[in-house]
Structures are given as C-alpha cells and as structure tokens.
C-alpha cells in the first residue's frame, strides 16, 4: 500500500469524515498510520477486530501489546531504526488474535511526507502470512531432517547436476576424503589411480547416456589409505524426461572385498594343496544319488570334459576289476551301518594305466540319525607306492652294502693289527732304552750305585724277552691264518674292494681304471683273505702315486685268464716305483715312515696259501705292477 504523500495532515486522520473512514475500515487488510514520532494515530477496524483491542487501547504504542512476547523487542527495535532512518521496511512477527492465538504477519511501513517534503508520519499494512510461514518452516525442518539423515547414513552420498558438477556431498563423504565440496569438483583425484580412468570413462558414459552408473573402485581416505567402495548413481528426471539431478550413493565394501579375496585365495590354496598332495574331495548325496568331486579327483581319474561323473556306478566302473567287488561291498556296508569308509584300491584309466588310490569317507547324519551324505577325501598313492617299492629295493642294496662293509671291517683290522703290534713292541723297547740309560747313570754316579744298576740291567733282560715273545706271537698269528675256501668270483671281490678304496681320502685325486674279464671262472678261495690281499695292494698303489705331481695319478686293475686257465689279476700304478721289486716282499721291508714292512710279506703268504704266486715288476714307464696268479682249482684239501 504505497502512500507517498498524504493529502491531509496525519493528525487529521482521526477527524476524517465517516465515509472515508468507512472505506479504510472495510478494506480487508490491517492498516495503520502513525505520526512522525511513530505513535499510531489511526488503526483500522480490521486491525482492531483481529486483535480484539479497542481503538483507545491500540492507539499510540498500545498496539504493541498484541505482539508475541518473543517478537516484541525485535519488532519495536526494528521500527525504531526505521523511524531513525526514515526508510521503509518489512519485518515478520506474530500478532495475537482476539482468541489469544498467534499468527505470523508481515509488517510493512512506509514514510509519509507533507507537501513541503518533510516527514509527516508513517503508514503501513499488516498482512497475514501464517500459512506460508508454516509451510516454509515445515520445509526447512524437513530439509534439516534430510540433512541429518544424509549426514548420518553409513554411506557416502553426493548429488550432481546434469552436467556432472557436484552440488552436494554429505558429511561422511567430506570427512572420508578430508576435503571440501569445492575440492570434490575434481573428484578423480581421490580415486586410486588404478581405477581412475575406468571411473572417469564410466561416469562420462552415464552422464551422456543417462544410464544408471555402478562401479567398484578404491577411494583414498584422508590418511592416504585406499578402501574399496561400491558406487551407484541414478538420475532423477523431470516430467519431460530431462535429467534434473544425479544422486550418487557410495558404500564401503572393503571388508566384504577382503573376505572375498581371502576366500578366493583360500579356495585357490585348497585346490593347490589338493593338487600337491594328490588329494581330492568328494561328496555323495544319498537321497539324490549324486556324486560331487573336486578337480583333483577328476585329474587323477583322467576325466574328460563332458563326461557324466555324477552317479556312483561311473566311479565304481573305474576301479580295477579285481578290487571292484571288495570296494562295492565295503561301500555298501558303510552306507548300511553308517560307519567310516576307508579303502585302498587300484583304478584303471581309459589308457590302461593303473593308479593306486586311498579313499576315506565320513558318514553325515541328520538330527533323526538318518544318513544324508558321505563326505570324503581321496588320495592318489601311486607315486608313494612306487617310491615304497624303490625304497624296498634301495634298502636291500643298503643291507647288501652293510654286509660287505662288515666284512670290510674285518679286513681293516689288518692295518690296526700292525699299529697295535707296533705299540706292543714299542712298550718293552721304550722300557729297555730307559732302563739302559738308568743303568748307565747309576754306574756313572759317584759312588756308583751298583744295586740300582743291577736292577735296571735285570729289567732290560726281562723287557727284551718280552719283546721277543711279542714278535713270536705275531709270527704265529700270521702262520695260523685260517683259510675258509668257497667258490667265488674274483671280479666281485675286486669290485667290493674298490668300493672300500673309494672312501679313502688318498683315492680322491687318482684315476682308477678297471678292466675285468667277465668270463673269469669261479675261484676256490677265502673271501676275507682275498679282500685283505687286494685292499693291501691297492692302498699300497695309492700311496705310491700320492706324492707324484708331474703327471696324472693313475691306477689300473685288470683281471684276465691265462692260457693254462689260471686267473690273473694285475694292479699297476704310475707312482714312485720300487728299486728292487723282489726285495719288497721281505718282512720288515718298507718305503714308508710309519710302515711295519709286513704288508707285502702277508700278501705273499696269502697268495701262497691259495697255491698262487704274487710278483712285482717295474713298469716300462713309471711305477710298479703287481701280478697275482691263482690256479682255478686250488687244492681243496687245505
């Protein structure tokens, strides 16, 4: 109601003619006029009727009693500010109705000017806006609620304009990425680079086509950690089908994703374990009469794609005919008695190959105690079985070898014997020497201690006798060496001894060449003595080549048959050689620092005991060749 100029003085309103007043009073609006100081000089009837105030009560500042207590100060101070500035203004406030209820009104005020342009007073209207106000309030509350919901749903929510500009993001989203709504305009920066281009492409496609969007991707959190999310976006359309807005919901699926990954991984492990252990899993559903089997079983049974393996007869059909009746009966009994199934059997593959199987099954019953299914495992034991056979063979070889070694241990005592002979002889010898020195010293003393010297001399005699006794014992020991003659293969003895020699450290750098005549007939000889003989000669030969450095160390062992049928064995080395080979057979002849010089003497006596000959000869090049010659039919009487 824009009055700018009043044709009459403000204070003249009260005195207006009734017809004019009647007009103002009948206008269906609440009107008022004040003087320049703001005191009401006229309030129309509608105003008075609404508030239930009398004109006397309302005029001046009396009308303010009808204002809502919470609005009064706000409105009056606003009114004062208009009075001070002389500008028009509007303000909302609640006004009490005659029935003491309040409604919202819009108070508007306009300054009035007199003819000379000075401020004459104010006029204004009061419009009922209660319905609108309530509607707005409700809308605001609804929005607050919505906002509250959006900010608290366990999801990231965002909306976008039809062109893809982000115009809203809930608190969860902003908190998660740790950024503002403006930062979100460049949303790809928050997406893991592995998923970034895919997301941009898909989003662009949806914006263009209007098709809903769904994708899983990794979203980087404020702390830099990426988690898996599932995003869905749907467009909201206007009645003309044009897109108004995109609504996007993003849900954290990281935990689910991890569980899925772990599950996939563990399934992969299980498959791998099944494959590695050659173990498969199976399940027989009794009611449906169906068999399920794992890939490993199918692999072992060489199942072709497309083969129907779902019925028990298929599986029984693969069992070796010899094992089938037994296994079928056993399986049937397990079904009947609900007992554990455990079986070992062979299967025949389509190509005829036989494989060994070990199967176990556990009966599963329902609450009523009825058998529902059997769950089982199946292991391919073929390799294991083959290995067992191999092992059996190997341990036989080991046992054989052990037997040979125990015989060899017997042989080794020859060396030890020599050592202990040395010790036995050395003991009295050391005593003889010490006693002799003592004797001399007692005699040399001043005065000479004859008694002690005699004692010492007596001990010398005793010890000397002891030493002689030892030598005598040793002699008889060798003379009495008992021979147990059996038919044996000389080549085999050679091979046994070579096995022993192999463990000698001196052997390592020596090339040993063998040339054994396979047609050598059986000998009649003592195995242990022959082994002693060969071992002794071979160890000698190894020692002979040990110190040479100017040529490869070389040993040759050769067996052959002489024209008269005798067996001949030659052991040749390219070592230091003997000056006089025949002298080497003399007892106590030795080229070694620690040797006793008995080895070759013993060797010759062994050969002699077999009616054979042992000779040595210098090689044309370097080294020595020892030749053993043994008659095939030695005297069996010895």
């Amino acid at each position, binding site marked *: 109601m824009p009055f700018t100029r009043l044709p009459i003085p403000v204070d003249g309103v009260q005195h207006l003619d009734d017809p004019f007043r009647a007009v103002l009073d009948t206008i269906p609006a609440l009107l008022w006029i004040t003087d320049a100081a703001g005191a009401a000089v006229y309030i129309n009837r509608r105003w008075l009727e609404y508030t239930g105030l009398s004109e006397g009560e309302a005029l001046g500042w009396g009308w303010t009693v009808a204002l809502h207590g919470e609005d009064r100060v706000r409105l009056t101070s606003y009114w004062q500010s208009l009075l001070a500035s002389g500008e028009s203004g509007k303000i909302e406030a609640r006004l009490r109705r005659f029935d003491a209820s309040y409604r919202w009104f819009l108070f508007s005020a306009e300054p009035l000017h007199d003819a000379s342009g000075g401020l004459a007073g104010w006029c204004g209207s009061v419009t009922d806006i209660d319905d609108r106000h309530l509607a707005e309030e409700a809308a605001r509350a609804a929005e607050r609620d919505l906002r509250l919901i959006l900010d608290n749903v366990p999801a990231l929510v965002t909306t976008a304009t039809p062109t893809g500009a982000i115009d809203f993001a809930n608190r969860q989203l902003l908190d998660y990425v740790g950024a503002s709504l403006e930062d979100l305009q460049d949303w790809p920066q928050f997406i893991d680079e592995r998923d970034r281009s895919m997301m941009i492409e898909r989003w662009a496609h949806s914006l263009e086509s209007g098709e809903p969007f769904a994708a899983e991707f990794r979203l980087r959190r404020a702390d830099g950690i990426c988690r898996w999310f599932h995003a869905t976006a749907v467009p909201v359309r206007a009645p003309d089908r044009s897109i108004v807005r995109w609504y996007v919901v993003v849900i954290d699926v990281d935990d689910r994703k991890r569980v899925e990954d772990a599950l996939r991984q563990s399934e992969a492990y299980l498959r791998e374990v099944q494959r590695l252990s050659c173990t498969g899993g199976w399940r027989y559903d009794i009611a449906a009469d169906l068999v399920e089997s794992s890939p490993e079983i199918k692999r072992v049974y060489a199942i072709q794609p497309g083969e129907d393996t779902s019925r028990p007869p298929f599986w029984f059909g693969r069992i070796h005919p010899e094992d089938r009746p037994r296994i079928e009966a056993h399986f049937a009994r397990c079904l009947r008695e609900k007992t554990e199934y455990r079986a070992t059997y062979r299967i025949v593959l389509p190509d005829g190959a036989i494989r060994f199987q070990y199967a176990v099954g556990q009966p599963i019953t329902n609450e009523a105690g009825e058998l529902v299914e059997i769950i089982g495992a199946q292991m391919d034991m073929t390799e294991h079985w083959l290995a067992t056979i191999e092992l059996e063979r190997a341990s036989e070889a080991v046992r054989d070898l052990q037997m040979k070694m125990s015989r060899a241990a017997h042989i080794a005592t020859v060396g030890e014997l020599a050592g202990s002979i040395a*010790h036995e002889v050395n003991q009295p010898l050391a005593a003889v020497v*010490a006693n002799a020195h003592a004797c001399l010293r007692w005699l040399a003393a001043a005065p000479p201690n004859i008694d002690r010297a005699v004692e010492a001399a007596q001990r010398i005699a005793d010890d000397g006798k002891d030493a002689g006794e030892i030598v005598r014992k040793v002699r008889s020991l060798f003379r009495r060496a008992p021979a147990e003659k059996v038919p044996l293969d000389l080549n085999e003895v050679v091979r046994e001894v070579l096995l022993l020699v192999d463990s000698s450290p001196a052997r390592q750098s020596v090339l040993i060449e063998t040339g054994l005549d396979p047609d050598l007939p059986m000998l009649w000889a003592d195995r242990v003595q022959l082994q002693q003989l060969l071992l002794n000669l071979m160890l000698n030969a190894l020692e002979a080549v040990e110190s040479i450095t100017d040529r490869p160390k070389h040993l040759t062992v050769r067996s052959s048959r002489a024209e008269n049928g005798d067996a001949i064995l030659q052991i040749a080395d390219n070592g230091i050689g003997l000056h006089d080979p025949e002298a080497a057979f003399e007892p106590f002849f030795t080229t070694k620092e620690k040797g006793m010089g008995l080895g070759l003497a013993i060797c010759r006596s062994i050969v002699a005991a077999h009616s054979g000959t042992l000779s040595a000869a210098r090689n044309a090049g370097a080294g020595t060749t020892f030749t053993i010659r043994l008659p095939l039919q030695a005297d069996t009487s010895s």
Partner: protein
Amino acid sequence: MTIDRPIVFVVDDDVRIRDALASLLASVGFDVVAFASATEFLGAEKPDAPACLVLDLELPDIHGLELQKDLAEREAPPIVFITGHGDIPSSVKAMKAGAVEFLSKPFGDEELLSAINAGIALDRSARLKRAERAELTCRYERLTPREREVLTFVVGGFANKQTADELGTSEITIGVHRGQIMRKMGARSLAELVRLADKLGIRPHQSP
C-alpha cells in the same frame, strides 16, 4: 713355601715303563711318584712342590688328552706326553693344549730329562705367580669397602680433590684413605700401587 725339591709324576699303565722311568729319574735326583691310571693320579695327595707330569697318551681309563683338558682347569703341573703310537694329530692337539713335549716310545734319556726340566721350570714360575697373586689378594681383602672404592680413583689418576668431589666427601678424608691403601697394599709409590691393582685385575675408575 716348603722345600723346593721338584717332583715328577709318572702315569703309565705299563709297569715296565713305570719301573724304568722311576729308576731313570731317581738316578738324576728327582723324587718320582708313579701311577698306573689317571684315576689313581687324580685321587693321590700331591706334595706342595714344583712338579712335572709324564703322561702316557693311551691310558686304560681316561685318554691322556682328556686328562690334560681336565687338569687345565686346576693348578696342575705341566705335562710331558709319552706314547707308543705317536700320531701327528694327537701330538698337535697335546702341544696346542699346552703340553711341554710329546715323545714317541722309545725315547732317549736326554730328550725326556730336558723336557721334564723345562716343565719343572714352568711350574716353578707358575707357582711363584700364584703365590704372589694370593699374597696380593690377601692384602686387598684387608681394605675396607670404602678404601676399595677410593682405590679405583687413585689408580685411575684422580687427584684427592676430584675423588672427594666425586664421592661427596672431603679431600682430607680421601688423603687418609689413600694413606691406608698404600700401607695395607704394601705399595711404596703410586706407580707400584697401579701395578699391583693391575695384577689384581682392578679396573681404574673412568672419568665420567
């Protein structure tokens, strides 16, 4: 210290060797005690005199090298090994473990006697060192705990003033402690005290 007449222990299971060696060693003036086994030797009362042990490598009860190892942990006399086998690895082991000599039977008298004399000389100086050490320990034990504490400062080169500051006492008190320490330890100079402390394995106090 009693009479300083050296003694030779002979351990060999062969009576012929025992008798011969006893006679030979007696002929040059040694006291000889012979045992047939390691156990016998270990169980015997041994006189307090410089000694040498002539030990057979191959004894029936305990191997000579084993016995040598056992004896190394005690204040046992030096060892001269004798053996009828005389293998090189054993002799290397024995010598490494501190044997005086390793003789193969039969051996000459001069070899044996010079080895025994060397062993006795070694034992004599070891015994002297032990006695000296025992005497020092005895002296050190006469120090009060406080004096032992001050000792570490004195041999660490700390002046009385510094020591007093460190230990929170007066310079005069430290001076008194110092005098007591020198007297009880029988040291005539600081240098001697430092030497004695070093022999006792006392660690000088380090500047903080």
